[in-house]
């Protein structure tokens, strides 16, 4: 069992990341050709302060989207964990719809909804909040909305899996000892769902960090993200070396984050109430 799994990892994770890393240390020749000369140049460029605003923007958008996914996803997953049989399957299918619709179809739909003639504009006019048609495209909110739309299932599924696994008797035991509904949730259900929260946050935050479609379609130059920067290096500028260096930095950033979390977990930072 282990051997095929490690082969899989090697082929689809280690090799691509390693080749990116290697590419990042090579020199870009004329017309984007690769010269096999070792250089730090690409990484030095990638760490230039002029890219710092893009980095910070990406982290803040990804963070906001992840938080929104958590706030929206937790009640949804909680609700789902009480469903059974056909009903639950139906809800899970509904939840997966963003996965199944083509990205482009979904994005164009959002463009229509958010645009000047769109649903939101109409709705706000009706409610008298705005007086003339307005477009929401190009705003940070639109980009974050796109991220939330695409990555919500990544949050809900691990949350659902964690919540569904919590035995009902734990909640019953809490009620039995006098805890009302809210207290039983706060002291038992929520702490026990922490592994799901962690998994959901990671699974949402990581792809959000690399996303470029949302900013491409719903954003503007003001909402340019690292994903767009990297995409441009590969597809427009043909500077694969610089793109690889940027990508490697992002991967390094994420790995550091995960490792730090792991260390904290080992030390029991996320556990118990710590009350004496």
């Amino acid at each position, binding site marked *: 069992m282990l051997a095929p799994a490690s082969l899989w990892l090697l082929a689809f994770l280690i090799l691509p990341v390693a080749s990116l890393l290697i590419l990042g240390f090579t020199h870009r020749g004329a017309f984007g050709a690769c010269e096999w000369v070792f250089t730090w140049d690409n990484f030095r460029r990638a760490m230039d302060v002029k890219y710092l605003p893009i980095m910070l923007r990406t982290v803040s958008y990804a963070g906001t989207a992840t938080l929104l996914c958590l706030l929206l996803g937790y009640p949804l997953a909680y609700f789902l964990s009480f469903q059974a049989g056909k009903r639950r399957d139906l809800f899970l299918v509904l939840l997966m719809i963003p996965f199944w619709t083509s990205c482009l179809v979904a994005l164009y739909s959002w463009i229509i909804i958010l645009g000047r003639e769109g649903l939101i504009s109409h709705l706000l006019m009706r409610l008298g909040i705005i007086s003339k048609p307005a477009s929401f495209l190009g705003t940070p909110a639109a980009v974050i909305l796109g991220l939330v739309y695409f990555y919500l299932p990544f949050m809900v599924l691990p949350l659902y899996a964690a919540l569904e696994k919590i*035995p009902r*008797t*734990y909640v*019953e*035991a*809490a*009620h*039995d*000892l*006098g*805890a*009302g509904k809210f*207290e*039983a949730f706060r*002291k*038992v259900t929520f*702490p*026990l769902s*922490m592994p799901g929260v962690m998994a959901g946050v990671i699974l949402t935050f990581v792809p959000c960090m690399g996303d470029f479609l949302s900013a491409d379609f719903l954003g503007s130059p003001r909402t340019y993200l690292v994903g767009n920067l990297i995409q441009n290096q590969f597809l427009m500028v043909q500077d694969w070396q610089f793109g690889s260096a940027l990508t490697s930095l992002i991967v390094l950033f994420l790995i550091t984050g995960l490792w730090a979390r792991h260390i904290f977990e080992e030390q029991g930072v996320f*556990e*118990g*109430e710590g*009350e*004496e």
Partner: protein
Amino acid sequence: MADASSSTQELASKEPKPPSAGPLLEVSGIVKSFGRTKVIAGVSFHVAAGEFLTLLGPSGCGKTTTLRIIAGFEQADKGRVFLKGEDVTTRPPYLRDVHTVFQHYALFPHYNVFDNVAFGLRIQKLPKRQIKTRVTEVLDLVKLSGYEKRRTTEMSGGQMQRIALARALAGRPSLLLLDEPLGALDLKLRREMQLELKAIQRRLGIAFIYVTHDQDEAMAMSDRIVVFHHGRIEQIGTPSEVYRKPKTSFVADFMGSANILSGRLIGFKDGCVRIRLEDEVEVEFPYADPLPVAQGQALCVAIRPERISVRYEGDLPLRGSCVSLPAILADTVSLGDETQMFLAFFKNSTKTVLSATMEARHQNERRDGTPVWADIRWRDILLLEPEGE
């Protein structure tokens, strides 16, 4: 309050009225169905303060469901639950002064031992100092002092059992519900814990409702036993009552096994009953207790295996007053220092085989197919209502 509910109670059960002080808990006329299956079909009983009451019955007879209705996790379709005279039928579990020791402990895995035991006390918002003394006290009671900081997932079954007990006792409920608390422990630990539980219950004076399907456990621990069968109560009584004076053949067989023979009461004169057994043999013997059926009707005759004494041809019959039945030794099974013998009676019916135990000293005399006599003392013959439904 005994007056107010007496009419419904009489309808629902044949139990005597609770003492005028009022029982701690009264369950009256509980009916509960899951989907189409009726799991509890009219159950009433009461628990006095400080009493150890056991719900005993085979698997699936509705013991857990009854307990869950008392705790408030399940709502009865019909019937009421009174706690200290108050109707708590529709109250949620967190507003009932009742704690539960769950069958699989249900210890919170994200808390250590101290936090588990302190859970209910923190909900009650007791001052920290008091929580600490209470937890120490109750951990001491279950012999787990010094384990406060341990994770519950790192403890043995017996220890988890004690923590679950400590957690339920810490809030000092007036009634504790225990659902097969010793079910997952090995036999030796079980016996130890039985004694300990009983001692703790006596010491604290808390009423226990204890669920088990082990009749030895029930006999050893209970003040009174409620025998369940198919969602109904077959009998309520002290351990010796249900053992010696079972009301139904189910109780007779469940409380320490019994041979159930079909019979017909064909005569009753001068304190002597005349019974035809298995449509074959007629026996006559004095019987002092009230008869379960009228003359001429079918009944059940229950005889406990350990009360049958097997006699070989030529042995002296049992001294005193007994009934002797001819039989064939059909099979013997050795059970440590005892031998279980299966006796075939009654030529016409192949189904009836009485089992009896024989002491080791007779071991070498056994040979299958030997004709023997089975002597049964008059007072060991139990006459019961015929099996219903």
